[in-house]
């Protein structure tokens, strides 16, 4: 099994996994979505809410705000009963109208655990309206609630392979390709593929070719992963954390069989 990183920055990642199976790739995808712990607002105490939104709506909106997660300082399954400094963070939100309440108005008790996005509007307050809430953020898993999912739009596809057997340079396939990855090479007067990975296997080129000389297929054991981070964890760390969780699970499984 081999991994080739195609591109990765703080928020987005793309990598190629070769020599694998669909079952393993799906395991990795599910691991990234459901098994990597992140921080999210879990309990909300509402002391005053004069806004146009109901308490429940405000609590839901607060829950969906991604928080920058520090996995070294916090534990997922804490032994304490009442909640302690190693398993939860409390934050307060106290805004008086007229104002728009933003995620950046949350005052956290831990300066490292802050909203990943500053400009998320929570509610708009008119003059005389007030919002005073206290929230508790905890680590959680994506399988319990989507707010604890570190990735957004996480998925994979088989690596597309475009094979050209016959070509007279008519350019029909170049015209129909919605991804614009085909072009006619001026010197040889034959079609060439510029970015094979981008192919969506729509097979419009196959239909357009009257010589039946182009074929869009895919490699069954090579997978191209694409995912985005919601800001809670850096995108380059998420697959590594998922693999770690998967390995732990596999070890537990072996242990259980013994």
């Amino acid at each position, binding site marked *: 099994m081999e991994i080739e990183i195609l591109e990765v920055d703080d928020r987005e990642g793309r990598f190629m996994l070769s020599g694998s199976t669909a079952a393993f790739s799906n395991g990795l995808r599910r691991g990234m979505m459901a098994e990597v712990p992140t921080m999210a607002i879990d309990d909300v105490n509402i002391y005053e809410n004069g806004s146009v939104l109901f308490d429940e709506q405000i609590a839901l909106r607060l829950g969906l705000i*991604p928080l920058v997660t520090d996995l070294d300082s916090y534990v997922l399954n804490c032994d304490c009963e009442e909640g302690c400094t190693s398993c939860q963070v409390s934050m307060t939100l106290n805004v008086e109208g007229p104002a728009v309440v933003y995620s950046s108005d949350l005052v956290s008790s831990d300066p490292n655990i802050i909203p990943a996005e500053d*400009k998320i509007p929570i509610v708009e307050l008119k003059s005389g309206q007030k919002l005073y809430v206290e929230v508790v953020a905890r680590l959680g898993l994506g399988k319990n609630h989507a707010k604890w999912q570190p990735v957004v739009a996480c998925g994979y596809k088989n690596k597309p392979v475009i094979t050209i057997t016959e070509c007279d340079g008519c350019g029909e396939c170049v015209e129909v390709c919605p991804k614009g990855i085909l072009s006619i090479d001026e010197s040889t007067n034959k079609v060439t593929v510029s970015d094979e990975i981008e192919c969506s296997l729509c097979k419009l080129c196959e239909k357009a070719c009257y010589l039946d000389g182009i074929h869009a297929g895919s490699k069954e054991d090579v997978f191209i992963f694409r995912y985005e981070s919601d800001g809670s964890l850096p995108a380059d760390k998420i697959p590594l954390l998922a693999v770690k969780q998967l390995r732990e699970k596999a070890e537990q499984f072996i242990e259980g069989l013994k």
Partner: protein
Amino acid sequence: MIPVRCFTCGKIISNVWEEYRERVKKEESAKVLDDLGIKRYCCRRMLITHVPLVDTFAPYQ
């Protein structure tokens, strides 16, 4: 209020809402969305189809 995340994929879209709202007054909506990095059509419809209702409800509080 604009939903915090895209209903379909979960991307945070509310943080660009105010900029989008201001810019569509003068520019073409498709160009603004491209500029703001809203690529998928699930996220794009969130901003295009949103109707703000806070001002409508506020007098009845």
